[in-house]
C-alpha cells in the first residue's frame, strides 16, 4: 500500500507543502521535548558547539548528535515514507537542526528559496524536502513559517519580497499545535514569520535530499552517530552508503514491510 494518500500527494504537488497532524504522539513528543531541553542546555553552556546564536534565532546545528531520540524521528514511521514517496528511493538527510525563535524576533524581506543551483531546472525538479516538527504550539502571531503555496513550480521572475513576512499575498502560515509536522519543498518560496507572541517557537528541522548529494557543510555524522545506524535505510539517511549505488529499502525500522 502506498505510504501516501492521493489527497496528500495531490496537495503537495499543487502547493509545495503538506501538514501531518499529530505526527508525534504525546509520549514521543514529551521525550523529544525533554531531549531538546537537555540539548539546548548543553549547547548554551558550551559556545564551541556549532550553531547560530543571534538575537532573532538560536539554531542548534546537528541536533542528531545530541540524543538518540532525534535519530528515531529522522526515521519517523509515517513521515519518512511520505518523504520517500515524494523524493524517491534515494532519500538522504542533508541537515538537521533545532530552531528556537525568541519572542519578539522579526525579519525583514526574508523570503527565499532553499534550492537554487546552477544546472538544475528547479520548477520541475525536487532536490530537497524540509520536514518541521512543531514542539510547542505556534499561535497565529507566533512566527510560524510563511509559505507561498504553489511557488515551488514558479518559473521566471522571483516573487516579490515583502517587508513583513505575513504581508505576502496568498501566503499561508504554519500555525500548528505541538506534535504536528509539516513538509515543504526546497523550492517553495518561504520565510520565517515574525514572532509577536509570548512563546518561543521551537522546531525540529530535518532537510532530506538525495544520496548523490553532499551533506550540508558541518553536518557530517560523527563516528558515534554513524555507529547508531542500525538499518540500511538509516545508513543511507546518514550518507554512509554508495552515492550512486542501490537504494535501501524502507525496512522494519520505518515500520513498513
Amino acid at each position, binding site marked *: 500500500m502506498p505510504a501516501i494518500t492521493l489527497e496528500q500527494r495531490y496537495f503537495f504537488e499543487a502547493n509545495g507543502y503538506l501538514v501531518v497532524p499529530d505526527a508525534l504522539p504525546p509520549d514521543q513528543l514529551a521525550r523529544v521535548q525533554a531531549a531538546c531541553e537537555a540539548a539546548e542546555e548543553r549547547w548554551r553552556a558550551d559556545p564551541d558547539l556549532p550553531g547560530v546564536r543571534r538575537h532573532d534565532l538560536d539554531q542548534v546545528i546537528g541536533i542528531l548528535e545530541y540524543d538518540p531520540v532525534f535519530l528515531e524521528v529522522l526515521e519517523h514511521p509515517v513521515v519518512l515514507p511520505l518523504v520517500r514517496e515524494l523524493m524517491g528511493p534515494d532519500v538522504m538527510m542533508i541537515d538537521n537542526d533545532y530552531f528556537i525563535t525568541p519572542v519578539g524576533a522579526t525579519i525583514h524581506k526574508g523570503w527565499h528559496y532553499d534550492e537554487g543551483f546552477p544546472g538544475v531546472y528547479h520548477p520541475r525538479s525536487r532536490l530537497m524536502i524540509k520536514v518541521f516538527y512543531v514542539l510547542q504550539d505556534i499561535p497565529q502571531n507566533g512566527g510560524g513559517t510563511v509559505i507561498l503555496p504553489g511557488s515551488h513550480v514558479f518559473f521566471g521572475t522571483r516573487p516579490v519580497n515583502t517587508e513583513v513576512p505575513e504581508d505576502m499575498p496568498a501566503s499561508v502560515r504554519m500555525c500548528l499545535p505541538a506534535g504536528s509536522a509539516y513538509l515543504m519543498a526546497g523550492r517553495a518560496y518561504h520565510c520565517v514569520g515574525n514572532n509577536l507572541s509570548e512563546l518561543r517557537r521551537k522546531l525540529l528541522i530535518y532537510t532530506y535530499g538525495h544520496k*548523490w548529494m553532499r551533506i550540508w557543510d558541518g553536518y557530517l555524522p560523527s563516528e558515534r552517530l554513524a555507529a547508531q545506524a542500525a538499518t540500511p535505510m538509516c545508513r543511507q539517511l546518514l550518507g554512509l552508503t554508495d*552515492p550512486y549505488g542501490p537504494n535501501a529499502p524502507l525496512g522494519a525500522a520505518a515500520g513498513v514491510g
Partner: protein
Amino acid sequence: MPVLTEAQRLFFETNGYLMVEGALSPAELAAVRRAADTAEDRWRRRPDLPGNRVPEFEQIDAILEYDPLFFDLVEHPKVFPLVREVLGPDVALLDHAYYMTPPGGLVKGSAWHTDVGHRIFGVYHPRSAIMARVIYALTDVPENGGATLVLPGSHHYPVDFPVPGAKWPEEMPGHVRLACKAGSAYFYNGNLWHAPSNNRSDTVRRVLLFNYGHRWMRMWKGHEPSPWLAEQAKTPMRRQLLGLCRAYYGPDAEYPAPAGA
C-alpha cells in the same frame, strides 16, 4: 565573458554534445600517452588497483591517482572552460578513468543508456545539466574503432521517452558516431543517450574520461581523492574540483585562479 562561441552553444544545446578537435597539441598528446602507458603498466602489475579487467574492456578507475599530468587535463584550457560554462561555476569532478577497448569485443544494443536518467532522482533532466562527461581520445578512433555513439538531442527526452531497442548499438536509428583523431576531445550532457560501439578495427581504442558535476554532489564511490592527490590541489578551483571545499556555502572558485592562490 562567454567562452563558448554562439555556434558551439547552439550546437551543444541542440545536440547535447560537442566535439573539440585538436584539443591536445602533439606535444601534450605525446606526454599524456606516456603517462597513460606508465599508468597501464602499473595497473597491470597491481591487480588490487581498482578497475575493470575483462579482456574485451579494460578500465583503470581513478586515473588521477597515477600521474599529476592527468590533473592538468581536468583543467585543460581548451576544454575545461567550455564544460564550466555548460555546468556552471560550481563545477566539480565526480569520477575519472582510462578506458582501453581492444578489437574483437562484443557490445550489444542494450548498452544504450544515459548517465543520469535512472540514477539521479529528483532532477528534471530534459532541461538540466547535472553532469557532463569529457572524453579525450589518445589514439585515432575510426568509424569502426569502437567510437562512442550518441543520439543527438536525446538529452531533452523525458525519462519515460520510448527509445527503441536495438540488437547492436550501431542499429539505433538517428545516431551519430563520434569518430575522431587522437588529441581530440568531446563532451556530452549526462542525460544524452549514448553507447560504446564495437571495435572492428585493428587497434586498441584508448580514451581518458572525466565526468564533471557540481560541488554539492558526492564523488563516485572509489574516487574520493587520496592524500597524495589532495596535496596537488593547490588552487581554489582544484580544491573545488576534488570536492575539498564547502558543498553549499561560500563562493564558487574563481577561474582562472587568482595569481598566488
